[in-house]
């Protein structure tokens, strides 16, 4: 029986390695969430370290989501950074997202920092399974290339944005109870089932952060 356990451990440890052979860069899996009628895809270019993600789906909104997701699992505190560029025209509210998600269920709890097609940044979240999505929309700066950063420290999620090469600026923070481990990744939705939306993610980084010093709020 101990032998069985070793084998199981090996399988678990091997999972991320196997995923690398799928060539998804920093991430381990990619899939459509919510079964949109038009299939999405995620391609990683090892030369440029860019991710080209195509997603369809009604939205990441309401009580259930449809989009394409590229993710890995992470625990504890971490930061995710990426620069997003929409490559296709489409709905004003098509989305490119840095997303933390409980599961790949269509109605899973999540929180993301999102850029809409019209350049509106937002922080949106579903706190409990199948609950409605909450939104905080930030003032619209118009379309462009956005650097986005989302940091999780304990139950606090803090977001930064920087447009067209400008320095990252902190935009605010919220409390979140997604727990650990959590799926961390990039999402793309077209905001319509009849079209796809392709987004290029560059300069993507995932950083595991040390636990904070004790005794703070």
């Amino acid at each position, binding site marked *: 029986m101990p032998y069985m356990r070793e084998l199981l451990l090996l399988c678990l440890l091997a999972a991320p390695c196997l995923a690398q052979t799928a060539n998804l860069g920093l991430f381990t899996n990619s899939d459509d969430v919510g079964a949109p009628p038009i299939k999405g895809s995620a391609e990683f270019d090892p030369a440029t370290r860019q991710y080209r993600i195509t997603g369809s789906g009604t939205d990441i909104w309401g009580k259930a989501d449809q989009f394409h997701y590229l993710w890995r699992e992470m625990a504890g505190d971490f930061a995710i950074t990426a620069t997003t560029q929409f490559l296709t025209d489409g709905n004003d509210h098509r989305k490119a997202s840095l997303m933390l998600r409980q599961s790949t269920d269509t109605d899973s709890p999540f929180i993301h920092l999102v850029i809409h097609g019209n350049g509106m940044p937002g*922080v949106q*979240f579903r*706190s409990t399974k199948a609950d*409605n999505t*909450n*939104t*905080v*929309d*930030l*003032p619209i700066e118009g379309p462009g290339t956005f650097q986005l950063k989302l940091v999780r420290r304990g139950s606090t999620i803090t977001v930064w944005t920087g447009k067209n090469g400008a320095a990252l600026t*902190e*935009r*605010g*923070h*919220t*409390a979140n109870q997604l727990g650990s481990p959590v799926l961390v990744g990039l999402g793309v939705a077209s905001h319509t089932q009849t079209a796809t939306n392709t987004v290029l993610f560059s300069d993507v980084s995932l950083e595991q952060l040390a636990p904070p010093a004790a005794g703070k709020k």
Partner: protein
Amino acid sequence: MLIFRELLIVCVLSAPVFAQSGSLGAFTDSADVGNPARKGSTEFNAATGQYRITGSGANIWEKQDQFQFVWREMSGNFALTATMEFLGKGEDHRKAGIMFRQSLDAASPYGDIVIHGNGMPGLQWRGNQGEITNAFDLPFDGPGKYKIKLVRNGIGITTWIAKDGGELKETARTEVRLQNPVLVGLAVCSHKADASDTVVFSDVSIDQFAPPAAKK
């Protein structure tokens, strides 16, 4: 004529005394929400147009609230603007601001823009009766005198903030489905059951907007 003027001044000066019994300026009512152990109060000074609001209460947070509220009913789309300053010291997370609230129930849905004692601005909302409060806290650089504005446009609630005489800037927007009429007013909470905080609100203005053209 001189005597008449004296009389007028006397009337104006005595307004705060009468405020307790109904003269609340732009508002119609004031009360504690959530029955805090220490009673709050609202005084309107007709001469300066300032509201001096004292509130206690555990917090405006989680599933229910305790605070002092001064309000009027409004329907449709509107905005409330005010400049606020905490008097004295208190908890880092004592709160004061502008609130749009469904009812006086402690667990009522609401949306607000608050400034915390340490200067942190926050957009907060409870989407449904008895639900947990959501919050989006904005970056800040310490306490001060804040001009704040909260706008209702359909289900959208938008916040504007300026610190220490700076230019009022839009900071964030969320969605809260409040039914007409909405209680529109000012809120003060000490974030501590056995403490009270006093906040002075000045330059308070209320705008009623025409219904928006069909959209989205």
